[in-house]
């Protein structure tokens, strides 16, 4: 590496500190997400610790979806398939087996008489578990059980058989961790592009001089990229340990929210240092491509001139690209709203947000010039300081834009993620309130078919139905868990108003299924009333049914309704309801009945949405996690860029002092500047984020109107304002203290 290239980093790293900080943040977040994605999630073997080999019915569901390489899809099952008790005796005869015992009573275990959850096998001394597992596999397939799958586990894999929820939770948490990495990297690129762009543009004089004394464009470009690579390495090294710590916290939090097995541990390895450096180098170098190219391409004379007054207007290419991005965002928006399925709309949300952000970033200088034009009346109100601030802004819209853009991006990102979540939660609550039409709801243990009969027999009861949350697997079109309710045969339409759009939902008989409109849409399950549909119950048993009704109010009650009689015995729990919904009857009658059953609780209209609540809680937590990361990155970028931009105005500060401006006047000018940046950034960011917010709200709730609660909105505005004010005014006061020329007052 040539000394001249990197002298800037070594000896005057000031303008590059922002790049180091931002790439450290990117590295830390990536390391954290990765250490969650490949966390050690092996569950403890618990009761099976003494067993050499554990045999259970296949704990995963395998379904062939369509054709092609990815056609065979798998999903961990939440309940045991069950084994016949006789299998233990059979396995006891396998050579090397000391004992084989059928075991039951695990969570998610079978409740059919004569069946066991699994068989625990102990080996004779000298027989390794691996060898024994091989013999058992051979014995099972030769005995004609080849058609039915088995899970044969040894070592740490026994834990997954002892606790089926571990596999389900693991896939939730790890998928989330892995899914977070691409957005983190993309957003980091945005954040860094603004920071590096500013860092490079501030040092144009230097690059111009290099060009004059004979550096080629390529040499200048490579010098900048080499600097960024060094910043990336530094950022990676700085971000590594915080990332490891954050990953540990993340795993802990996910485990607390049942999205990872309880004893999971984040992946800790020295390799993470390499990952951290790799990611931050790549992000830093990629983010600097545009800036480096621009610095290299500028002719030296032009760059020397621009040192006096930097290019006031963005290049036509930038404006064209910006208009192109805006047009692309419009097209994408039309395409998103045109999507029939909610999943399709949600999948397009992130690209839509990113395109809008690109458009805002590229058109930033134009927006700033326009905003400065709009802000002219402020000159009359704000006096000479406002006049000064506006003049500086209009003279250099490009430099002001580099401060406005991170504000806008922060608002767009945080706003759209937070308010989309809030809108969905709001719509869920609203639907839940109007879904239940029953007068009273009984909840508690032992709510089975007999209890339901007792309730129906009470005087004055017009209708009663039981509901229980259930999670099935379905192809929509990929094999995925679908949350819904198992319902009794009662007259559902007299206790629930699910907004049936087609078919009838009086009673759901075995062989029938009701599906939410969102899930039934083409692109998801693609079914209508009368369609044949197969879903897989928790223990993997297929339930083949005819769609009898479609309904719209699915946020609270889930996406499928299945007759309880079809589900009983396949959920890994005793048959029963979570809630019994009652129309009519008297409070006294119900209370008397409840008094005979400890644990029963009679409430007025509430909702049987335990499953939806769990899913919503998970979504809420995941969203908060994403939101936290996004907000952290955005805040780093914002403070970074603004602080660097403010320090760069030292010369203006000094000049103002020399011509007799008082400290107060200059402070006011900087304050007006900060206000302009905040307001312009808020408006541009709100516009960019609103497009995505509306798209997500429409997809998830069916409504065009997002729910924007006042307090968080005000919090976002105040938070952004405080960050901008701090990032501008703190450096200002630090600088002004060292400028004796500034008159007091």
């Amino acid at each position, binding site marked *: 590496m*040539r*000394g*001249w290239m990197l*002298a*800037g980093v*070594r*000896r*005057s790293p000031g303008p590059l500190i922002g790049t180091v900080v931002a790439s450290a943040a990117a590295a830390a977040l990536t390391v954290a997400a990765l250490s969650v994605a490949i966390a050690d999630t092996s569950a403890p073997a618990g009761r099976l610790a003494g067993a050499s080999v554990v045999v259970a019915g296949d704990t995963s569901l395998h379904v062939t979806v369509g054709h092609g390489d990815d056609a065979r899809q798998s999903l961990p099952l939440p309940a045991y398939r069950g084994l016949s008790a006789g299998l233990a005796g059979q396995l006891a005869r396998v050579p090397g087996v000391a004992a084989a015992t059928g075991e039951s009573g695990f969570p998610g275990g079978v409740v059919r008489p004569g069946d066991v959850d699994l068989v625990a096998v102990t080996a004779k001394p000298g027989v390794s578990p691996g060898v024994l597992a091989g013999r058992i596999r051979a014995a099972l397939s030769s005995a004609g059980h080849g058609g039915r799958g088995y899970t044969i586990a040894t070592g740490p894999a026994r834990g997954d058989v002892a606790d089926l929820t571990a596999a389900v939770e693991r896939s939730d948490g790890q998928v989330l961790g892995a899914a977070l990495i691409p957005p983190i990297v993309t957003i980091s690129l945005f954040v860094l592009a603004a920071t590096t762009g500013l860092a490079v543009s501030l040092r144009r*004089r*230097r690059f*111009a*001089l*290099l*060009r*004059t*004394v*004979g*550096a*080629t*464009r*390529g*040499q200048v470009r490579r010098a900048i990229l080499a600097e960024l690579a060094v910043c990336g390495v530094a950022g990676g090294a700085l971000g590594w340990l915080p990332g490891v710590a954050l990953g540990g916290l993340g795993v802990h939090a996910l485990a607390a929210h049942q999205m990872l097995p309880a004893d999971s541990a984040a992946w800790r390895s020295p390799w993470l240092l390499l990952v951290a450096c790799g990611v931050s180098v790549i992000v830093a170098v990629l983010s600097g491509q545009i800036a480096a190219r621009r610095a290299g391409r500028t*002719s*030296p*004379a*032009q760059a*020397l001139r621009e*040192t006096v007054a930097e290019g006031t207007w963005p290049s036509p290419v930038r404006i064209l690209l910006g208009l192109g991005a805006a047009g692309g965002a419009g097209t994408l928006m039309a395409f998103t709203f045109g999507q029939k399925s909610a999943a399709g709309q949600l999948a397009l949300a992130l690209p839509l947000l990113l395109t809008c952000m690109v458009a805002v970033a590229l058109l930033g200088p134009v927006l700033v010039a326009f905003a400065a034009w709009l802000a002219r009346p402020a000159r009359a109100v704000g006096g000479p300081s406002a006049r000064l601030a506006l003049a500086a802004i209009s003279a250099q819209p490009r430099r002001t834009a580099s401060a406005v853009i991170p504000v806008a991006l922060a608002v767009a990102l945080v706003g759209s993620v937070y308010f989309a979540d809030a809108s969905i939660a709001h719509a869920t609550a609203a639907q839940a309130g109007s879904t239940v039409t029953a007068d009273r709801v009984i909840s508690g243990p032992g709510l089975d078919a007999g209890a339901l009969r007792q309730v129906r027999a009470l005087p004055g009861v017009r209708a009663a139905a039981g509901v229980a949350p259930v999670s099935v697997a379905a192809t929509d079109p990929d094999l995925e868990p679908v949350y819904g309710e198992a319902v009794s045969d009662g007259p559902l339409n007299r206790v629930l108003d699910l907004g049936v759009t087609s078919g009838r939902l009086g009673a759901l008989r075995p062989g029938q299924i009701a599906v939410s409109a969102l899930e039934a849409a083409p692109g998801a399950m693609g079914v209508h009333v009368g369609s044949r549909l197969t879903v897989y119950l928790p223990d993997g048993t297929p339930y083949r049914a005819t769609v009898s009704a479609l309904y719209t109010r699915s946020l609270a009650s889930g996406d499928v309704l299945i007759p309880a009689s079809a589900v009983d015995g396949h959920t890994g729990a005793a048959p029963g309801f979570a809630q019994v919904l009652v129309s009519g009857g008297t409070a006294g009658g119900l209370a008397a009945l409840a008094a005979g059953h400890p644990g029963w609780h009679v409430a007025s209209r509430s909702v049987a949405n335990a499953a939806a609540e769990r899913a919503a809680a998970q979504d809420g937590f995941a969203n908060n996690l994403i939101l936290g990361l996004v907000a952290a990155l955005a805040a780093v970028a914002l403070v970074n860029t603004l602080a660097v931009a403010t320090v760069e105005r030292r010369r203006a500060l000094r000049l103002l002092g020399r011509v007799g401006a008082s400290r107060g006047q200059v402070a006011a000018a900087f304050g007006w500047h900060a206000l302009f940046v905040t307001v312009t950034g808020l408006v541009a960011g709100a516009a960019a984020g609103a497009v995505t917010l509306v798209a997500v709200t429409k997809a998830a709730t069916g409504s065009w109107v997002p729910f924007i609660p006042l307090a968080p909105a005000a919090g976002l505005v105040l938070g952004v304002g405080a960050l901008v004010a701090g990032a501008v005014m703190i450096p200002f006061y630090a600088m002004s203290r060292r400028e004796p020329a500034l008159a007091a007052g």
Partner: protein
Amino acid sequence: MLTATADTVEQSPVSAVHAPVELTDVTKRYGRRRRGVPALDRVSLSFGAGSFTAVLGVSGSGKSTLLQCAAGLERPSAGTVRLCGTDLAGLSQRRQAVLRRQRVGFVFQDLNLLPELTVEENIALPLRLDHRRAGRADIELAAARVGLGGGQLRRRPAELSGGQQQRVAIARALITRPEVIFADEPTGALDPHTAVGVLRLLREAADGTTVVIVTHDPQVTRFCDRAVFLHDGRVDRVLPDPEPAVVARVLHELGERS
């Protein structure tokens, strides 16, 4: 033999026929002001080998533009610039950069030195950019020629006085033994006494090199063989062996006219 002949054919006319810097009918207009007064209007000038020329004019006369066009930092709107015998219009940006670092030196008013590099690194910069080794002895020699001692070589530009900084810039311009040195207001930021010292140094150190100095300071012409006056983008007059007093008078006249 054939190869040798080819080489001779390529090289000899360069030094034999052409002056190191030749401008023919050079016109330069900036940006959108295509209809307005051009910064340079059909200027033809030749700077002979070893000549030491001052280009003078009031602000806005086009003298800096002349230097930038002549040095290939700026592409003329019309006309031909030949630098070191090569038509710049026929060179790619890359080849122009290589030409600059191998055969041209620059001294500016300020913005001369990279603040993060030491004095010796600044001096060696054109060699490093050219992937050449910068020998310790060469650098020390170049520094000694402009009166910089060993103790100053490891300092940073910010630790030096203005006059010392300009000496470093001259040493950097000379390190490649260039054919041409362009200087844009090299004494503009210096007091008169230091300015004279720096110019004398440039004159002595650049002996045999073609030097073009853009300036508005009549005192600079004390060291020059020739003074070229620009006015409104055109060559107004050329004075051989200029006297500072005469130059000052001409500049005053030009100032009155505009």
